[in-house]
Every structure is written in structure tokens, then in C-alpha cells.
């Protein structure tokens, strides 16, 4: 491969990132905290915490408890609402010197539509990530995006309005991730973020109480890695042209490489960044070293390189 210029830059179907490692939604504070600790220009992208139409104070505490190789957590999506976000936080994100992806969440179709309209024409924003794991206030379902009809309706509405790429973040609780992925992409999603954290809960035997204030929450951290890899693998095989961002369980360069081999185009780092704020940079460095060692030119070259048994048939997996 002499003479080939090696780079960790990735192109998610038109969305160019300096590295394949982003900071996942909910782990970038209000846009300025990370810049005090690391050079955010060396992060592929910052995904904002999920922004709702109206401000949310979020859940009561405790909001965090450790679990084996993971964390159970909830914030109740505390955020200043879209107007507060645009006024207060977006300028800080813009100063971070990297790609900014805004995560939006709602409980009705109208909320998503209004959120999207308020984000239009903002030069600071490169893409929208649609979180679909809230309860559905209109249809009375516990997870809005777990059903194909509803996920496609919402993602389709956002994608039709949006001038920038829309990534659908699929709920882990969906019964068929491939079918859901097909549905939202047909509806207009540019790419997919796999997966939103699975629902989780902890109990403390000493106090005989739930470990989290609002009782139930979500699971994040290394414990999720195999869950993410399988979802990425299955969706990537079914939809090789769709940009896939893997999230859940990435804490090292090796983890990221494994996600890329399984079919991801890029990865997001959440829990690992809470422990080591430089993790998104270190992980990208790890990917770069792997590319050099294995003589690949870019992270995109790893996609589809997974060596499968010759008789492997995904439908029987």
C-alpha cells in the first residue's frame, strides 16, 4: 500500500468527519465542558444531549448506579428546551471546532416536526439524530420508536423537512432491528445510530430500594458491546449502503475496530468519555494504529472485512 495516504477521516454518505469517533448523546454536557479538558477539534463529532420542544427538569436523583461492566442511569432528558438550547448551548458547541449533531426527542409527532423546523438553517449543525425511545403520548405506547409504523412516520416527517442528514437512533427494545432499520430508511433517514440504550433497573438489597430515583432507567457501558455488534452486523448486511453509527460498549480502539469490521461506518463513545474525557481521541488513535498495522487506508476499508464461515447464512443466525 506504499504511496496510499492513510487517514482516519470518514464520509457518512456526504457527512464528512475528521475521525470515526463521536461523543454520544448525553455525554457532552452543555457544549463547553469537554473543551476545558480535551482538544475537541480532534473528536469526530459531538452529539448534543437530547433536546425536547419544551424545557425539562428531568428525573429525581439518584440518576446513576454502577452495574457489572456498566452503568444504569437516567436523566429524564433534562434539557433547556429547543429555544434555550439554540440560545445558550449551540454557540458553545459551535466553538468546539468540530462537527455538531443535534439529538432531538419528543413524545408526539408534532413535537418532532416543530423541533426540526426550529433547527433549519442553522449553519452550526451538520446532522440531526432522532431519538425514539420516549413514551408515545399519542398512541399510548411505552416506547415511541419501537414500532415500525410510528418510527417511520416520525423519521419520515423529520427527514422531509430537514435540509441536513437525519440519523434515526433505534430503540434497543425493538423486536426486529433490521425491519425497523429498513422502515426508517425507506421513510427518509440518511443513516442509523445503533442502538439506543436498553431499559434497565437495579435493586439495592441493603436499603431494599431501587438504585435509581425514578426506579427505572437505561443500561450503558462495556456490557452493551455484544448487543451493539450484533445489531450493527445484521443491519449492515441487510443495508450495506446505509451509513451506520455504532453506539454502546466502545471504550477502546479495538472495540471501535470490531464495530467497524461488523459493518459500522463510525462509532459513538458515551460512558467511556465520562470516565476518560480523552477517550474519543484515544480511540481514534487506536483505530489509526490498527489501520497502519493492517495496512488499510481508511476506516471505511474495514467495513465488510469480517471473515465469516463460508456456509454462514444470516437468516439462520
Amino acid at each position: 500500500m506504499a504511496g496510499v495516504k492513510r487517514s482516519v477521516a470518514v464520509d457518512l454518505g456526504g457527512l464528512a468527519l475528521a475521525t470515526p469517533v463521536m461523543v454520544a448523546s448525553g455525554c457532552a454536557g452543555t457544549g463547553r465542558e469537554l473543551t476545558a479538558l480535551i482538544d475537541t477539534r480532534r473528536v469526530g463529532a459531538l452529539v448534543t444531549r437530547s433536546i425536547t420542544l419544551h424545557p425539562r427538569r428531568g428525573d429525581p436523583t439518584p440518576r446513576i448506579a454502577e452495574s457489572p461492566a456498566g452503568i444504569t442511569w437516567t436523566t429524564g432528558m433534562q434539557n433547556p428546551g429547543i429555544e434555550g438550547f439554540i440560545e445558550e448551548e449551540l454557540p458553545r458547541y459551535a466553538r468546539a471546532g468540530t462537527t455538531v449533531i443535534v439529538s432531538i426527542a419528543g413524545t408526539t409527532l408534532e413535537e418532532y416536526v416543530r423541533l426540526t423546523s426550529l433547527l433549519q438553517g442553522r449553519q452550526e449543525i451538520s446532522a440531526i439524530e432522532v431519538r425514539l425511545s420516549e413514551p408515545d403520548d399519542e398512541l399510548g405506547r411505552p416506547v415511541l420508536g419501537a414500532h415500525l409504523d410510528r418510527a417511520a412516520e416520525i423519521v419520515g416527517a423529520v427527514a422531509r423537512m430537514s435540509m441536513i442528514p437525519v440519523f434515526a437512533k433505534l430503540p434497543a427494545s425493538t423486536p426486529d432491528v433490521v425491519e425497523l432499520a429498513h422502515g426508517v430508511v425507506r421513510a427518509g433517514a440518511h443513516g442509523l445510530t445503533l442502538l439506543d440504550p436498553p431499559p434497565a433497573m437495579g435493586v439495592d438489597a441493603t436499603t431494599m430500594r431501587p438504585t435509581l430515583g425514578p426506579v427505572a432507567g437505561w443500561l450503558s457501558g462495556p456490557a452493551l458491546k455484544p448487543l451493539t455488534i450484533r445489531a450493527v452486523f445484521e443491519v449492515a448486511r441487510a443495508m450495506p449502503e446505509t451509513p451506520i453509527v455504532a453506539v454502546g460498549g466502545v471504550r477502546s480502539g479495538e472495540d471501535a475496530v470490531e464495530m467497524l469490521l461488523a459493518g459500522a461506518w463510525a462509532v459513538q463513545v458515551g460512558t467511556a468519555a465520562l470516565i476518560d474525557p480523552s477517550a474519543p481521541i484515544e480511540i481514534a488513535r487506536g483505530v489509526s494504529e490498527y489501520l497502519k498495522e493492517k495496512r488499510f487506508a481508511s476506516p471505511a476499508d474495514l467495513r465488510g472485512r469480517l471473515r465469516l464461515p463460508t456456509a454462514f447464512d444470516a437468516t439462520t443466525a
Partner: protein
Amino acid sequence: MKRVRAEILSTRRLGAYQSITLVAPEIAERARPGQFLAIQMPEGREFLLRRHFAVHQASRRGGWAGTLEFVVEPGGPGTEWLGKARAHEFLDVIGPLGKGFAYPKRLVNCLMVGEGHGAASLYFLAQELIARHKRVDMIVGGETLERVFKPIEGKRLSQTIQIVTTDGSLGERGSVLDALPEMADRCGAQVIYAAASTTTLERVAAFCRERQIPAQVAVEERMACGFGLCFTCVVPVARKDGSGYDHLRSCVDGPVFNPARVLWDRWLSDAPTMLPTPPEGLPAVRSWPG
């Protein structure tokens, strides 16, 4: 805020606690009382998150210049591991974090209320206040004498001190709250600083409100990162204009708060989601002494 790889200079047992001194000049020269450190846990364990500890001592001058001391109460897997760490091992430390205690500008009498390892940050504060010519008195307590943090240091730093233990093994039998009214009268407390369990802080807050004494308290809420990323360590704090309250992150907006503005009922209630919105106005408390 700096991230450093800091060598453990020494670690010693102090009753139920382990006091760890680090060589970390970049953090020591910036650290103020009430601020804290986020210490990374070893890799390859089931537990992941950094552990957070108040700064007990940050030496800028003299033979100990550049050192930083914090106090661990072993109890969970992370604190047990730190308690066993040896001198010359290295820790990944981020600090100083959060907003520390404010110092009154005027010459006022300051009363400290320290429970358990909470006293660690108050001793650091006491030194800074004494250097500013304030009178410092203390109530220091714990369940047993092993859990009264450095009583001799407390005596050295204060004009008067009341030591209390739940079992009466050191000082008076009782809690820091039992000693509070009399001590506040006796030393003419004009400002109260407290670092204690949340339930104790709630009652210190009620006392200060009743007596109209300005106060600052260092809270402990379960925290994931410690530097503002995750919004897990929040405390409900009333807005200054009385228009409601916000969930403020104790890692960046605290851990030191004005207890008169903390909505203790909401924070500590077993059924927080069932509570109505908080009262419009809050009881007025005399303003911070300049």
C-alpha cells in the same frame, strides 16, 4: 481543571478513614476548600466510574508544596481499592472540580459543622478563614470515635470545638445537630459552613433558616463523571428570582450550595414525582456577609 497522573506520596489510616497524599502541583496550586477530585479506577474491573473526593489539603508553600490530600472512607469496591493503594503508585486525577466555599469579606464568626469525612474539607476551609483573620469554631462528629476525622487537627484550628459521637466514645454523646444550637449561641455564629450527610444538611439548613444565619453547605449526590458532562448529580435549587427551580449539577454548580435555596423536601423525598411544584417564594435569609 487539570488532568494529571499523580504519584501517591503517602497513604495513612486515620480511624475509619484512609488519607491519601498525592504529588499534584498543577491541581494543588488551584484547589480551594470545597472543591473535589475525580479519581479514575483501575482497568479490568467490573466497576468503571471515577470516584470523587473533597480536597482535604492543598499545599502551595513550604516543604509540602505541590501536594494534595484527600480522604477515603472505604465502603464500596472503588473506595476499598483506593484504601489499599500504596505509596508510589500512580492515580489518574482530574481536579480541582466544582465551586468551593465562599469566604466572607467582613470579619465574622464562622461555625463549621462537620460530620464523618465531611470534616476533611472544612479543616482546609478553616485554615483559609484563619488566614483571613476570621474566628472559627467547630462541631465535629461521627458515629464512633474512629469516624471523628482528625479531632486533634480540629482542636488546633478552632477557637472552641465540640466533638460528638453517636455512641459517646469520644466527646459528647449525640449528633452534630444536638450540639448546633448551643454552639451557634456560644460562639456567636454569623456564618455556618457544613459538610455532612444529606439528611443532616437538611436540618442544618432548617436551623440556619430559623436563626437567619447565612450558610454554605457541601452536598454529596451520586455522580458519574464529575466534570459536567452527564447531568446525573443534580440538586433542585430555587432560582434567585423566585420563578421556580432548576436541577443544577453538583459537580459544576456545586458541590457547595446556599442551603436556603436547596429544595430539600423535593430532593430527599421518597415520592419526588408526586410532589406539587415548589412554593413561589422562599423564606428570606439574611444575605451573605459581603
